[in-house]
């Protein structure tokens, strides 16, 4: 049952991810991306990470995707304005990406999974346990990320403000 779900979700996720890249219409790309996020959330639930799964749907599939859609609509992207890449660039890009995926597949194929020692507990991914890890072991990175967010906000305001020309 679990294995079937895993493979099903994986196939959906990969197909949709390909759809994001391949589809010509930006709106379709965004919609495919939403599907990808949903199937990845399914994976999270399979791994007992319920909280992350929900956050993934709310934040990514909800908030960020709406932003994406807005931007796509505002920019009014269409085929004519799309810059054309030369064939040489396309060939180089395809070759290097292909080689890279070959390396990845080759490595992952022969790899042995390290044994999982912890207990498989359905409560692992609940907010309580997550908070405990976040505020004990990872307290310092958690606090330090506030600097990152502050600087991102200052930066966004700096770039977005009107009429600041000296």
């Amino acid at each position: 049952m679990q294995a079937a779900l895993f493979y099903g979700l994986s196939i959906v996720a990969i197909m949709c991810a390909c759809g994001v890249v391949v589809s010509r219409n930006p709106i379709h790309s965004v919609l495919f991306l939403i599907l990808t996020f949903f199937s990845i959330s399914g994976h999270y639930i399979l791994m007992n990470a319920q909280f992350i799964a929900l956050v993934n749907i709310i934040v990514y599939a909800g908030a960020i995707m709406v932003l994406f859609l807005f931007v796509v609509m505002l920019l009014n992207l269409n085929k004519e304005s799309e810059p054309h890449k030369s064939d040489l660039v396309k060939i180089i890009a395809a070759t290097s990406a292909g080689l890279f995926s070959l390396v990845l597949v080759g490595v992952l194929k022969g790899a042995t999974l390290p044994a999982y020692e912890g207990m498989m507990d359905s409560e692992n991914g609940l907010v309580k346990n997550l908070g405990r890890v976040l505020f004990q072991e990872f307290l310092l990175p958690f606090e330090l990320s506030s600097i990152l967010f502050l600087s991102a906000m200052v930066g966004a305001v700096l770039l977005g403000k009107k009429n600041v020309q000296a």
Partner: protein
Amino acid sequence: MSAIITLSVLGILVLYLGIFNFKKVLLPVILLGLTVAFVLLATNTGNVLAADMHMLVFDAPARAFGCLLILITAGVFCLTPGNMEYATKFRQDVFGLMIFSLIGGIMMISYGNLITLFLGIETLSIPLYVMVGSKRSDLKSNEAAMKYFLLGAFATGFLLLGIALIYGATGSFDFRVIAEQCLTLQGNVSSWFEIGVLLLLIGLSFKVSAAPFHFWAPDVYDGAPTIVTTYMSTVVKIAGFGALVRFTRGGFPDMHVFGQFTFILAILTMTIGNFVATQQKSIKRMLAYSSIAHAGYMLIAIHCSTNASLVNIFIYAFAYSLASLVMFGVFMAIADKYELADIDSFNGLSKKNPLVAICAAIALLSMAGIPITAGFFGKYYIFASAIDSNYFLIVIIAMLNSLVSLYYYLKLIIAMFFKEGSNDVSEKIPALHYFVIFGCTALNILIGLYPNNLMMLF
């Protein structure tokens, strides 16, 4: 740790000073704060907060690299008067971002956990993307910011995938646990680990602009406001190499597996950087390519990873950033006002301002690695320890590259001393500017005379 707290408070304070319009005291406050942070970091002996979790480890190399970062940032701040006209109204925001970015740099050179490494890189980069694009009326600056942001996000993707694979193979983000796992498994480490490390190295090589991940560097260095370029080519490079050397010296027994990768990277970076630099007309672009070439020399120390690598990279980075500060300082004083600042804009500098011209010449000679400058010992130590561990080929290539680099450095020196310049009135250079130029030159020569004193920091 207390240094990071001081710097965070300083950053927020700077933003508030901007709100209440205390722009006069901005620079003194920043320099005072940086001094406090420097002292706190230099005297830091124990970890207050992070001791148990091993998130940030302020050991001797981390302290040395951190103090260097703060020192160079202070130098960049001293160069700001007269060079921030594009941002008179929001100067404090750019200053604040620069301080936040410095915090990211300090995290990058003191991490003990892959999570803090990632956070450090992001904290360094995100303010930088904004700073690069802060000259909003300039199309080139906008383009540079966009390019840097997109490619940087892409590189972060590689880095994260690498971290995830390392976690998958070892079950931990903690450096000690990862090294322990490698030891107990004795070569039977899952191949995820190797590809993970490779991806992580790719992500870091992007940050230090090593070829073939360097394509963003010339455009971004050229398009960014020159003061930001100065910051990027010094602080970001030191932080990137601090992180790289910390990673490769992190206690993994099988690091020579990646010898091939770093070998190709080092040779490509040196050669491309130097040869393309000879073709450049614009000084800013030339300095950008020369900074790529310098990354190549430092990669040699990463490649022949020995116990001396840490101190070798430290000395090289020190010498390189001192020389860079001088060069960018002179460039901003002399040539930044021209639309296309090419080598001719340095013509006749020795007549107009002989002292500055001599300082610039010393900085250039230091970059090229001529004796009695710090740059010579930077190169000497790296090459010598590479020869000690029998890496002859890479040293020969590096020597030939140094010869090539002499060509374009000398071109600037010739322009300064032997060509007639236009006889317009010499510009007024702010006093702090002089302070940076002379101070860095003096330090440069001091290190060149007594290089052994730096070794004691480790």
